[in-house]
């Protein structure tokens, strides 16, 4: 057991898999010599050498196209996109090629690859370096979508992603990089599609992801002080989606709130809310409420950015307003 940052957990997770399987390789901009701009790949070049850990040009289509081709030919590559905003620069390869190729070839092609990328806001970087792009990926059939909220989960879910035979987009939240927790020694491997119950409760189900998980947990604490018992579910992966976790919880609590960082329209919260509205409407004792960033790009100024990203107070207000 050692205390680990979320940032260091990324390198540990990658190293765990690279040690185990020589076909795992890592490429991206500044990932090798520099150890990544967020220092999430520190030490990997030294440990695994320049054939397996390699810096690329600023060519996102070459990075993701490159790992796709490599996955077709015997490697299990990990490609880093420095910021998730840059998914847009190679979106064609991600959605039209990586996501569809197994289906369109009727299973001839397997793509065991992982695209890791720094996601989310809170860093005052402005609108082009702060997006939460996990919804873009969730909307595309053929992509698995993972977004851990804790250092331990980074290791376990990264291992699961690397071992998964299908393409995974792995979102590392920039605002969580510095967070720490005690992480068990030895190999950690999770399963995709299993949500975690971060608090147990009877009055309301709060579904969250990545950096919104600590926000939801904080809100649950504040609500407890007001006599409201909240069950916080950390989805951990959007595809596969643990619908049983939240449907079961709502059956108990009768109330559902989703807490998302991304802009409001067509987010994963809408998907969760819609599933609930279709499948457990009779369990509901009130409206389903989505707490989200407003439908705007993230502003750079600290005061505006903090206002835009949901915080615990906002979640508390949403829950109390439902009653």
């Amino acid at each position, binding site marked *: 057991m050692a205390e680990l940052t979320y940032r260091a957990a990324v390198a540990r997770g990658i190293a765990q898999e690279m040690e185990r399987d020589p076909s795992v390789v890592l490429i991206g901009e500044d990932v090798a010599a520099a150890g990544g701009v967020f220092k999430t790949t520190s030490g990997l070049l030294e440990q695994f050498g320049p054939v397996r850990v390699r810096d690329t040009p600023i*060519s996102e289509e070459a990075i993701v196209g490159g790992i796709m081709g490599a996955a077709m030919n*015997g490697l299990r590559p990990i490609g880093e996109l420095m910021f998730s905003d840059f998914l847009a620069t190679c979106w064609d390869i991600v959605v039209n*090629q990586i996501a569809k190729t197994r*289906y369109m070839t009727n299973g*001839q092609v397997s793509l065991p690859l992982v695209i890791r990328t720094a996601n989310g806001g809170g860093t005052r970087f402005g609108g082009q370096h702060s997006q939460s792009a996990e919804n873009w990926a969730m909307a595309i059939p053929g992509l698995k979508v993972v977004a851990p909220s804790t250092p331990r989960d980074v290791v376990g879910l990264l291992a699961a992603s690397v071992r998964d035979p299908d393409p995974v987009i792995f979102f590392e939240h920039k605002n969580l990089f510095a967070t720490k927790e005690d992480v068990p020694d030895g190999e950690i491997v999770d399963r995709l599609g299993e949500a975690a119950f971060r608090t147990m409760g009877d009055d309301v189900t709060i579904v969250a992801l990545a950096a919104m998980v600590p926000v939801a947990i904080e809100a649950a604490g504040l609500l407890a002080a007001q006599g409201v018992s909240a069950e916080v579910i950390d989805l951990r992966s959007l595809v596969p989606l643990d619908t049983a976790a939240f449907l079961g919880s709502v059956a108990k609590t009768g109330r559902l709130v989703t807490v998302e960082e991304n802009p409001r329209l067509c987010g994963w919260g809408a998907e969760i809310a819609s599933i609930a509205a279709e499948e457990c409407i009779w369990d509901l004792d009130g409206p389903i409420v989505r707490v989200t960033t407003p439908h705007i790009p993230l502003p750079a100024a600290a005061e505006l950015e903090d206002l835009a990203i949901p915080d615990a107070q906002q979640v508390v207000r949403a829950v109390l307003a439902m009653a």
Partner: protein
Amino acid sequence: MAEPATVDIDPSTRLALYRSMVRARYFEQRAYDLFMEGIVKGTTHLGLGQEAVAAGFAEAMNPTDMTFCTYRGHNHTLLRGAPMTPLMGELAGRDVGICGGKGGSMHLTDVSKGAMGSYAIVGAHLPIAAGAAWAAQVRQSGQVSVCFFGDGATNIGAFHEAVNFAAVWKLPVVFVCENNLYMEYTPISAVIPVPHPAADRAASYGLESIIIDGNDADVVYDMATRTIERARSGGGPALVEALTYRHKGHSRADPGKYRPDEEVAAWMARDPIVLYRERLTAAGFDPTLLDEIEQAGLAEIDATTMEIRNAPPPPPETMMTQLWADGGSQWRN
């Protein structure tokens, strides 16, 4: 343009080249007929007239080498060894289709033969082909990736990223631009400020400028052999521009009327199959041997056509298979 190949190509290879072109020609002609008949649905982008490029490269490749091509990829997939009926079945959306009908005309793939897919977004497969070559390099597998694309594809960003990436990492990939002078309906000359869409860009990546007569199977085979072997032995990528012409329009029933009559006539007079038959005959090959190749090709496509006419569509449950490696398409519990 390079001179006609003066290199020695052994007779059996030359017969194989002829046979390849003939088979591709019959396949594409029949695909057109079946499209007009409504049996092939959606669209078709035929490689009629461009057979020498596909034949020359396929012949020069090892079985474990990898082909990446476009929607205009029937020739390439067939000539890597994919069987004809599953290919035509895919065009017709039948269960017997090589992709079970899920891919369609633009997406022929036969991984077992190294035909690693036909990609319908212009330029997207160049980085993918480079990536496959990178895996070959890492794994020291000795494979080479060959990636075909059109003149129009040279103006999309992925072209630039892929060729640079391949050049700087010295990847074993041969990029082959089939310059047929047109994109869909617009001539390539209208959208580039240089005469040669690929060759005039090669220097950007420290690569040699290579332009060949893409209608001469010997020339193509010769350049294919040289560039593939150089790539295989660690010499890095090549960018080859093969000048050729499509006999039909861009796709479906396009009559190609935007092309000047004289231009069409000049290129029709350079039909790669007619030229090659003449060359072989002049070189002393027995014409009855060539006739037999043609007859066998016709018999093969006739047999395929018969099979396809009676082939059932994919069963409904296949709609939900093979999104994921577990065979299914479930995204939730």
